[in-house]
């Protein structure tokens, strides 16, 4: 009997090396993230967490090794891959001279996403009324982060790359972010989230990888879904219900 082909991972890095000039950002990373999985990337400052996300987003070229994103080579299918990947970075990617609505509309239309999702996404993030007509230059850091999140929600990418997503957000926005991650996963998206505050994200994550010196040095399974529940359908609530199963693998 022919066995079914294994599902394509949402993100796969095989011995990936990335350089900035001659400085190694990633020094041979091996990582595979399944579709629908939430993976937490931990590590101290300068460990390579942001670099890992930037390489996955195709913003930093791979010097050697093999990278596939959503089953595609991002060098070869750059536009197709980028339209399916969303990144919440340290910077908000906003234009100060445009207002909130114009910033979100431009980002969503540029990504070829459905403009019909802009209104609900802004509303969800509390970007309503006068705030929509406020220029980005007048926003606080937390409000800029909310706008960047609204773009991400409206784009509804298949792969979410979140770099320190809780930074600059107040308590209500943090809990909203956690909800949004759970909802994205419930609709089949994959989430890779880098943080040096893992305790905030562990309740959402299926697995944690530790990065240090540009390498994956450890891996920890945080939650194991019930065997009969497809992992992509597991939301944060279901995951939170199961007992934690911890496993530590040292790769270095």
């Amino acid at each position, binding site marked *: 009997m022919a066995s079914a082909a294994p599902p394509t991972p949402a993100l796969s890095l095989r011995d990936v090396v990335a350089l900035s000039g001659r400085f190694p950002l990633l020094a041979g990373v091996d990582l595979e993230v399944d579709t629908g999985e939430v993976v937490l990337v931990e590590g101290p400052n300068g460990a390579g967490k942001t670099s890992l996300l930037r390489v996955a987003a195709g*913003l930093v070229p791979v010097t050697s090794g093999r990278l596939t994103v959503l089953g595609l080579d991002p060098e070869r299918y750059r536009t*197709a891959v*980028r339209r399916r990947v969303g990144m919440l970075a340290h910077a908000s990617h906003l*234009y100060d*001279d445009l207002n909130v609505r114009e910033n979100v509309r431009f980002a969503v239309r*540029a990504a070829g996403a459905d403009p019909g999702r802009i209104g609900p996404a802004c509303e969800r993030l509390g970007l309503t009324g006068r705030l929509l007509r406020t220029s980005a230059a007048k926003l606080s850091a937390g409000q800029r982060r909310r706008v960047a999140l609204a773009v991400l929600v409206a784009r509804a990418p298949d792969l979410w790359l979140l770099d320190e997503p809780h930074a600059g957000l107040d308590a209500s926005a943090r809990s909203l972010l956690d909800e949004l991650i759970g909802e994205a996963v419930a609709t089949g998206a994959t989430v890779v989230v880098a943080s040096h505050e893992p305790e905030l994200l562990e309740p959402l994550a299926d697995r944690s990888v530790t990065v240090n010196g540009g390498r994956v040095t450890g891996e920890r399974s945080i939650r194991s879904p019930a065997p009969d529940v497809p992992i992509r359908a597991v939301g944060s609530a279901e995951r939170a219900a199961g007992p934690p199963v911890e496993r530590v693998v040292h790769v270095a």
Partner: protein
Amino acid sequence: MWRDAALVAGKDLRIEARSKVALSQVAPFGIVALGLFAFALGPARAPMVSGAPGLFWVAVLFSTVLAIQRSVSVESADGARDGLRLSGLDPAGLFLGKALAVAAQLVVLELVLTVGVVLLYGAAVKTVWLIAAACLLGTVGLAAAGTLYGALSAGIRVRETLLPFLLLPVVTPILLAGTRIWQAGLAGGTPSDATPWLHLLLAFDAVYLAVGVVVYGPIQEAT
């Protein structure tokens, strides 16, 4: 590609409409440059009229550098350039959109500077279509070459000083051809006086538009 170009041009022009940098800084800079040239040439009218075509294009070139630097700096703040790359916009559309927005600003600038040349230098425009053709073709070339070299300098820390150094020598054909066509336009020349120079501008535009469409993406990824 055209959809992306229209989207990017619309965004850049909206930003300029809000910030008014082109109107409040770039155009006044061009007028100041024309005024300084007039002071340098002295009060006699003849040298100003004979030098007007060249001085107009030198003022346009210097102002173009400012417009391009502005176009690049808009994408440098708050990681906007990464945002553009992540959006999956067609690089050719992005190049054409940025160039289109710069060209629209340059057209306004050239109108202002043409009025300045007439008022400050006492020059009379006798063959209007030659002047218009030179401005139109020169604008396309300046916007295309400027956008391309602006992208080249975008990732470099010293881009403000590097851009004029890269761009100004490259656009010398526009200065040369534009000046010759303007001389014919101010002297009431015939089309045959300007044909070779119009061809030079057309060739320049075609080369830089084609090169920009092809290499803008790789440049954006590499810088």
